[in-house]
């Protein structure tokens, strides 16, 4: 079987506006999308087709930039340009607005749920990263505000197994945070990109981190931190993928099932990279396994691997569309 990306379905998800982000539920059966029309849409499969099951409206006054599922799959968090983060709870026939988290001074660019389910992180153009704690009564409280970036923070992502947080910024840097005595602090600053870092993705083990940037490269960073966990962390760039992307790379997604790396680019393409098995793990080598040059007819903003079904990939675009792809590996 030939290696490649084939289209499963195209959805006109957010008509007349941008679709900014898509996210699979933890069990892989639902897809949440959000966009410039201020709504969140939930998609599920009925037979062979993906259809819209719910529309979450009236939660935000401006663009919804990102959505994130809680690890248990019962909650959805949404980050908006209206400076708030909404928490939605799944009900029998949809979602209800549980609470609104306020505090950021301007647009919230990202929200992410820690694997433990007890912590939430948000980041904003106000240059800060906020860490929130959730208790058993569904009460949210901000526990730390960290100001390690000097500009707009575009993305936050949690480590898959440790309580470690990473953020990407317009200041071209990546910060890694750890908790010390209830306070979150930046323990490593990863420099190297020459323009805005738009997104981050940890591999399944959490030992490697992929970043993508306006500088049209993807960088792979490896954890060289001392085993004792004391003091500062140490992450080094072990690989840079350049020459493949024609414009800004808006998103990168590392598949925890197969190790494949997918990218979403402003040149309208979706690309999949695979790590060469023969290369030295200290100096990984990635090669282009598949690409769809015109995955959408406008910028691709997001790309995300299904957490349960290997090879299933979702992407979304400035033209309001979502596309679902199947990445077939060579047999």
């Amino acid at each position, binding site marked *: 079987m030939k290696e490649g990306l084939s289209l499963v379905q195209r959805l006109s998800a957010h008509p007349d506006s*941008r679709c900014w982000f898509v996210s699979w539920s933890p069990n892989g059966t639902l897809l949440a999308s959000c966009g*410039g029309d201020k709504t969140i849409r939930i998609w599920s499969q009925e037979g062979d087709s993906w259809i819209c099951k719910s529309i979450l409206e009236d939660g935000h006054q*401006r*663009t919804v*930039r990102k959505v994130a599922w809680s690890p248990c799959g019962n909650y959805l968090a949404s980050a908006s*340009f209206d400076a708030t983060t909404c928490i939605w709870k799944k009900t029998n026939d949809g979602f209800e607005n549980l609470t609104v988290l306020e505090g950021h001074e*301007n*647009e919230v*660019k990202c929200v992410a749920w820690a694997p433990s389910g007890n912590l939430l992180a948000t980041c904003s*153009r106000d240059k800060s990263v906020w860490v929130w704690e959730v208790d058993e009564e569904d009460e949210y409280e901000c526990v730390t505000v960290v100001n390690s970036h000097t500009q*707009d923070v*575009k993305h936050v992502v949690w480590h898959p197994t440790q309580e470690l947080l990473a953020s990407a910024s*317009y200041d071209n840097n990546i910060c890694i945070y750890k908790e010390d005595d209830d306070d979150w602090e930046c323990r490593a600053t990863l420099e190297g990109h020459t*323009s*805005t870092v738009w997104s981050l993705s940890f591999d399944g083990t959490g030992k490697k981190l992929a970043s993508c940037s*306006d500088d049209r490269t993807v960088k792979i960073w490896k954890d060289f931190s001392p085993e004792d966990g004391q003091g500062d962390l140490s992450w080094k760039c072990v690989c840079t993928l350049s020459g493949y992307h*024609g*414009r800004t790379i808006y998103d990168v997604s590392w598949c925890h099932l197969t190790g494949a790396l997918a990218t979403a680019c*402003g*040149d309208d393409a979706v690309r999949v990279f695979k790590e060469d098995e023969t290369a030295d793990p200290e100096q990984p080598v990635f090669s282009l396994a598949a690409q769809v040059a015109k995955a959408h*007819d406008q*910028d691709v903003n997001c790309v995300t691997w299904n957490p349960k079904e290997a090879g299933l990939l979702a992407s979304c675009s400035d033209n309001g569309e979502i596309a679902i792809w199947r990445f077939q590996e060579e047999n």
Partner: protein
Amino acid sequence: MEVVSNLVSFTLSKVFQLSGLDQNCNVLKTKRMEEKALEVYDVIRSIRDPEKPNTLEELEVVTEKCVEVQELGDEEYLIIIRFSPTVPHCSLATLIGLCLQVKLQRCLPFKHKLEIYISEGTHSTEEDINKQINDKERVAAAMENPNLREIVEQCVTEPDD
């Protein structure tokens, strides 16, 4: 010998023909890029300056030469605009950049990617402004700010719209 020289002159004439064709192709291509550049200029020339009662063309903030068009592929073009703000004031330069983004996004009939820059040497914080103008997330968020949107709308709306 004659066979060889015939073959040589035959080959040579083919080479001349082909390079002639090539030259024609390049001339056509340049002409097409110039036409596209004019189409783009026609859209931006009438944008009004945020402060003064003049168009960007009248104030020479944009000129025909400030538009560059490159072919990206199938009927898709890369447009690069280098504009010269009249005053060194940071926020006004960013505002003009925003107006250029918005008007072109709305009015250009052909598929394109856009890059907008302050022409070199006209501003002290060029790099900062260029980065902001070309960050589509920042542009989108700015346009959701009602006050900013109002100003931009006034600058980009044609009198007969």
